[in-house]
Structure formats: C-alpha cells, structure tokens
C-alpha cells in the first residue's frame, strides 16, 4: 500500500507526493505522456531520440547531469511505445536542485546542434548494440511488424530503421518539444524523505510559471481484429533455432491483462510451471521457454518465445506449444496453480515497494492509466481472477487465427541439413 497525496497546478501539471521517512533520499519522477506510438510513421524512433536530447542542456542550464551530480544525484530515463519517463534520486536535503533542473528542461531546451549530432550517433550505436549486433536482436523489429497492421505498435521504440534516426533534424526536435513537453502533458511524482508542503512550495516556485501547452488529443488507429494466422520465417546467423508466437490480447487496464499475466506465470514462470516441466524437462524440446505480456497501454500481445533443443524442428516445436496452450483452453487450470501465481505476484509487488524510486514511478504511471490509487489495487485485481476467468480469457486469446508466428532459423543449420 503506497500512501500518497495529489494536487494539480494551474498550468495542468499533476503532482503526486509519497512520504517515506525511513530513507535519507528523495526521488523525482516525471512522466511525459508521449511514446513511440505518437510518432509520425515516416519519422519513427523520435520519442526515444528526444529522450537523449533532454540531457543535452536546457534553456538556462547547460549541463543537466553535471548539476545533478554536483548535488549528489543520479538519474536516467526510458522511453517505450507508450510513455517517456525521467527519474532521478538525490539526498533529500538537496531536493530543490531536482526541481530547478526538471522545471528548466520543461520550460525549454537549449536545442544545441552539437547535442543532436552526437545523440544521433549514440542512438545509432544503441540500435546496433541492442538490435543488430545481437543474436535474435531483430525479433523485436520483425515480430511487432507482423502482429500489427494499423496501430503504431508495429514499430519498435528505437525506430523502424536507422535511417529515420539519421535524418532527424532540428525543426523536428523543436516541433516535438512544443507539441508534447508541456506541464499539462506531464505527471510529476515525488517520493522519499519529503513533505507535501515542501513539494507544494517547490512546485509553485519552479513549475507553476511554465505556461500550459496544447498537447494533441491522441487518436490512434485501432488494430483491426486479426482473422488469419500469420507466419514469417527468418534465417540468421544464430547457433540455435527459435520460435516466437504473438497473440493479440487486451490493454494494460483491461481485466484481460490480469488474467493473461497470471496465465503466463502458470505456463513458464519457474521450475514448476507447466511448459517448463513438460517441454524443457520432460520432452526436452526446448532449452528455454517463456511466456509474457508486453504490458502495453493499448491492446497488446501475449508472447511465447522459446529456443529449440538440438534436433527439434520448428514445426514440431510450434505444435508442442500449441498442444500445451490447448490444455488451458480446454480445461481450467488447477486451483493450486493459480494460487501460486497469485502469491508470487503479490510478493513481487511488496518487494518492489521497498524502493522509493519504484513507488514514484508506479504512482506516475498509474496516474496516467486512470488514477494513482489504481497502483494500490493491483493485488486485489490479480486476486479476483478465477479459474473460470482465466479459461474464458485464454479461449479468447489463444487461437491460431489471432496469432503471428515467427520461425527464427539458424542459417548454419539450414545449410547443414
């Protein structure tokens, strides 16, 4: 249970405060309601590139990191398809430094040409490091493309292709900033050894003077219902064949999400999970297998991925997965199976609340998703899922006509056969 208070500034900035006096630290998390899904299809990767530029100096402060480190702080940020999130932690005695820094880059960036030029290269190296120079790295470019035909989840956060990043120019950067980086498109969460009065005063001083903007209303094309199974075969220089199956499912706050998360645990989480016992241990068809949801805010994907054991064909592996999935559609999972998944989930949530940073981040994310109080309803929502709910949801999602399958074939093996 995370206690919090909430208020909104006149310019629309939403603020959430969580007080935890057991720590000498404070965390400041700012979430901007913009992600890769808001990008122009011809200029993808922009939200993420922009996140890098947020560290390239703001209108009054030439070096964000330098100033924060001076105050004993540390920070980072991430971008995904849904949001861009910035977070920092520092000794609570230096809290005002965080307000000074974050408010200045919300006010305006310095828009330095040098920063744009360098960060383009940095992001291109990141692209190579994570997606291209990595075995199986391009799965996360190819699989979304196969699964989504209209919704912008079809491209990865880092961008469809390196060329989109290469061609980013300053007018794009400025346009993006003015469109999305305004107080009424952001949520500020502060946690740690702070008081609500202190945060209020600091907000009035540093954030209130920033004028509101006109963030666009999000109107994304909904993904059409998939009616036919899709398949893609890739051949790559990897040592082992792999398979990926992506099924369309509900959005983060739908009931469907909670059922599918628990189903993923029942199937592959830990040494006692169904697919692990059956496919890795007993049949020895896979060396590893995992099921997970993408946790996306709009309707997302339920994914099964596995690496095949020596001598197993992709077709046989695919069939074995489907056979296991059929079982959860034909009969309810056992009471104990669901109970274990719930207990583990509850425990994970409690452990995650040790960290004041996690707490601030969660509060901000749930505030966007429908209200910070939702962060405290997660356990209850998971616990409410019954064996029947799981069966109903699994039958809706687990269906080959709702699935995109990627066979990732080892080139060496293909030649050898």
């Amino acid at each position, binding site marked *: 249970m995370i206690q919090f208070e909430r208020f909104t500034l006149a310019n629309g900035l939403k603020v959430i405060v969580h007080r935890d006096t057991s720590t000498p630290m404070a965390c400041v998390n700012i979430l901007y309601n913009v992600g890769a899904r808001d990008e122009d299809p011809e200029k993808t990767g922009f939200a993420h590139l922009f996140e890098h530029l947020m560290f390239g100096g703001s209108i009054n402060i030439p070096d964000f990191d330098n100033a924060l480190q001076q105050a*004993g702080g540390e920070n980072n940020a991430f971008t995904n398809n849904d949001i861009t999130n910035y977070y920092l932690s520092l000794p609570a005695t*230096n809290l005002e430094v965080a307000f000074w820094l974050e408010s200045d880059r919300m006010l305006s960036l310095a828009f330095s040409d040098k920063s744009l030029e360098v960060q383009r290269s940095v992001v291109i190296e990141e692209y190579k490091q994570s997606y291209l120079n990595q075995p199986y790295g391009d799965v996360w470019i190819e699989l979304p493309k196969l699964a989504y035909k209209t919704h912008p989840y079809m491209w990865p956060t880092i961008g469809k292709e390196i060329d989109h990043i290469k061609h980013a120019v300053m007018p794009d950067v400025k346009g993006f900033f003015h469109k999305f980086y305004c107080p009424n498109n952001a949520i500020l969460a502060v946690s740690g050894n702070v008081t609500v009065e202190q945060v209020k005063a600091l907000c009035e001083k540093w954030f209130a003077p920033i004028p509101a903007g006109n963030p666009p209303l999000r109107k994304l094309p909904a993904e059409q219902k998939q009616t036919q199974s899709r398949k893609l075969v890739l051949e790559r220089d990897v040592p082992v064949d792999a398979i990926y199956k992506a099924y369309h499912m509900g959005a983060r706050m739908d009931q469907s999400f909670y059922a599918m998360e628990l189903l993923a645990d029942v199937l592959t989480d830990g040494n006692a999970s169904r697919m692990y016992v059956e496919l890795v241990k007993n049949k020895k068809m896979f*060396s590893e297998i995992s099921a997970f949801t993408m946790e996306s805010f709009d309707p997302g994907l339920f994914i099964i991925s596995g690496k095949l054991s020596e001598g197993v064909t992709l077709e046989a592996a695919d069939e074995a997965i489907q056979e296991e999935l059929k079982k959860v559609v034909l009969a309810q999972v056992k009471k104990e199976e669901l109970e274990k998944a719930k207990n583990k989930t509850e425990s994970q949530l409690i452990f995650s609340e040790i960290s004041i940073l996690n707490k601030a981040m969660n509060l901000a994310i749930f505030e966007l998703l429908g209200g910070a109080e939702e962060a405290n309803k997660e356990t209850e929502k998971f616990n409410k899922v019954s064996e029947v709910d799981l069966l109903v949801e699994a039958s809706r999602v687990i269906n080959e006509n709702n699935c995109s399958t990627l066979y990732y074939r080892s080139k060496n093996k293909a030649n050898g056969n």
Partner: protein
Amino acid sequence: METEVKLDRTTMPVFGKEANIDIVHAQEGKLPNGIPLYSVNAGTQDVIKVEMIFNAGATQQNKPLIADTANSMLEEGTTKHNSEEIASMLDYYGAFLEVAAYHDYAAVTVYSLGKHVAKVLPILEELVKEPSFPQQELDVYLTNKKQRFLVEDKKVRAVAARNFPALLFGDAHPYGHVTKIEEYDTVKQADLQSFHKTNYSPNGCAIIVSGKFKEPLMNMIGDHFGGSTWKAQQTEASKKVDITPSAEKKHFMAKEKALQCAIRMGKPLFLKSHPDAIPFQILNIILGGYFGSRLMSNIREDKGYTYGIGSGVVFMKDAGYFQISSEVGSDVCDKALIEIYKELDRLCTEPIPQAELQLVKNYARGNFLRSMDGPFSLAERFKHIWLHGLDYSYYEKYVSTLAEITSAQLMDVAKKYLQKDSIYELVVGAKK
C-alpha cells in the same frame, strides 16, 4: 501582487550541507555450532532476505564448472523432493530463491515475506543440506547450458568478458580461467556430490539476515542451521595456482561481420585492504565510474562512438583488477582506443581541475548514501567488507578520504597504476 521577484533559473539553488552519514551496522551473533550470524533489522516493508554464504567458489573446485554447477543444481532435487516440488513450495509462499557461485564463495539466498518465513526456512535448509543432484536433471541442465554458451558466443561483449580475465591472471588460475564448451561434458554427478559434502558445511558458512523482522527469527535460523547434527567437514586446501599474466599486452579476437567491437582494457591491482584501494576507486569514478565520467563525456557525449562506456574495480580474495569496457562502432574502434589511452594519459599528466574533483566528491557522497539505503543494501555493504576481512572503519575511511583527497594525490595514484604501457587490451570484433 505587489512585488514579484524574478525567478533566477541560471543559478543552482543552494543545497544543504548534509549531516554526517549514519551507517547502520550489522549485528553480530553466533549459532550454537559456531556459524556466524549477521543481521540488519531495518526498513518498513514486511520482507526478509536470508543469505547463506559458503566456501564453495571456483577457487575451491578441483575442476572447471563444479562450483557453479553444484550451486545451480541445489534447487534441482533433494533426498525428499524433486525440482518441481521444490519450486512449487517456494512459489506457494511467494518466496524467491537466488543461487550464485563466484570466484571465492557461493551464496544461496531466499527472499520471503515475513509472514511466510517460518515455512520457507525448512525449504532452504533442505536445499543446502540434502541436495541429491539427480542425473536426469544434471543432463538437462548441462545440455541447456551448452546451448546458452553457443548463443552467448555470438555476442562480442560476452566473448570479451569471458576472455579478458585470462590476460590478467592466466587461463590456469580460477580468476582467469576461460570456460570452454567441452568442459560441460566433464561435469559428473559424483563431482557435485563430493564438492557439496566438503564445501556446503558449517565450517566456512556464514548467514546474513536482513529486512524487517522480530527476534524469534534468529531462533528459527538457529533451529535450522545451528544444530550439532550438521557436521563440519575437513576441507582440503585447494591447490594454489600461480597467477600468470599474458606476456603480450594487446589482443584481438575476430568475430566476422560484427557491427560493433567489444573493448576490454585494464590490469591487475591490489586487494581491497591495500592503502591505495580507496583513492584508486575515487580515481576510477573520475575516469569511467559515473555518467559524467571522462570516458563517457569524451567517447559517448562528445564523439558519439558508443552507447556506453565505463570502468570499474573488482576485488577478489587474493587479487583485484581494474577494467574498462565498451562496445563501439566497428568503423570507429581505432579512434575510440586512441581516445581511451588519451584519457588514461591525461590522468597521469594533468591535475584534475578543482571543479571536477568537487563534483565527483559530491556525486560519490550522494551515491554512497544511496548505496546504504534500505535493509538489503545495508546487508550488501556489510557483506562486501566482511568478505575481505575488513570492518566498518573501511567505510569511515572511504567517506573521509572522499572529503580530503587532493588532485595531487590522485595524480600520484594515476601515475602509479595507469601508465599506458601497463594496460592490457582486448578487442573482439570484425577484422579490418
């Protein structure tokens, strides 16, 4: 409004001079059979971590992979339960098990909610005392490990990480040994059984408990691990192998068509107890130990050659080393190397400007505070002095050195340890 003072956004707000850093010490106790029991009772959440440390690292094994495999296999079956049953029991209580074998020790850790810990401790006891290393589980484990090895072998970063320590310590030494895929075939059930018998025993064991708990927990730990029926074992002194660094300093390993090169550079250093250990760690922060470090500023933020570059210091029981690591675009690899050497050279020849030193001192102090935040972090900090035979005066020394050290002293340390020609270099990537 009468008078409105214009907000000055150009000057950093004055920030508080922090009070003294208050380090919560671990409490020391002893179980009836002599096992030291350390505890950190702190925090607000009803969570408990119990970490058991054993003299069961790679330096204690007589052949490759035994320490690591024995440690990983503890959860794969006991005399009473099979792998699936063990996992089911832990899942049921929402507990998490973590096993890890390092060079000098191995650890078995459970994380549990306070309300379930009484049910979780017997499982931990069973894993530690009565693992059976079932043959069929071992076969699956080794087959899958080999596959994972092949996948890792495609990553330049992984290949560099695996091969670099051998340049500093030699392939024959456990600190430097490069795992080869054939070695997985030499691991036998009997090796694991005998390694477990001698190395997972009360002598050489220590327990560190952290979280928010009540006193009876200490008695429970005693009930499970403090009895006299758990017999101490004679341990043979593991054979000493000499450290033999590579004669050549520069090494290259080819990875066809790699888009990036992995770079590892560094050298052997001293033990954590050495008087230069703290000054060198401060020097390391300046070089590559934080986002604003010289390597990051130059090679990422100025040149854009990489997504990330950093350096770090590793302390083991009988040696220490320093290393720089990065992945850079294949086309700019040579240029990146030149810049890295330039940065090492600059530390040896130019005093660190006052402003930069002050920044690093402030940052490191904040970071130190962060690293002591919460019961698990406090337990971790304790472990990292205890493992090296140090006490809390080490951290006091760290804080005072941080406050007092000068540019001149840091340049002396750089001159002593960061001469270019003393640095080992490994590049893994495409041939030019």
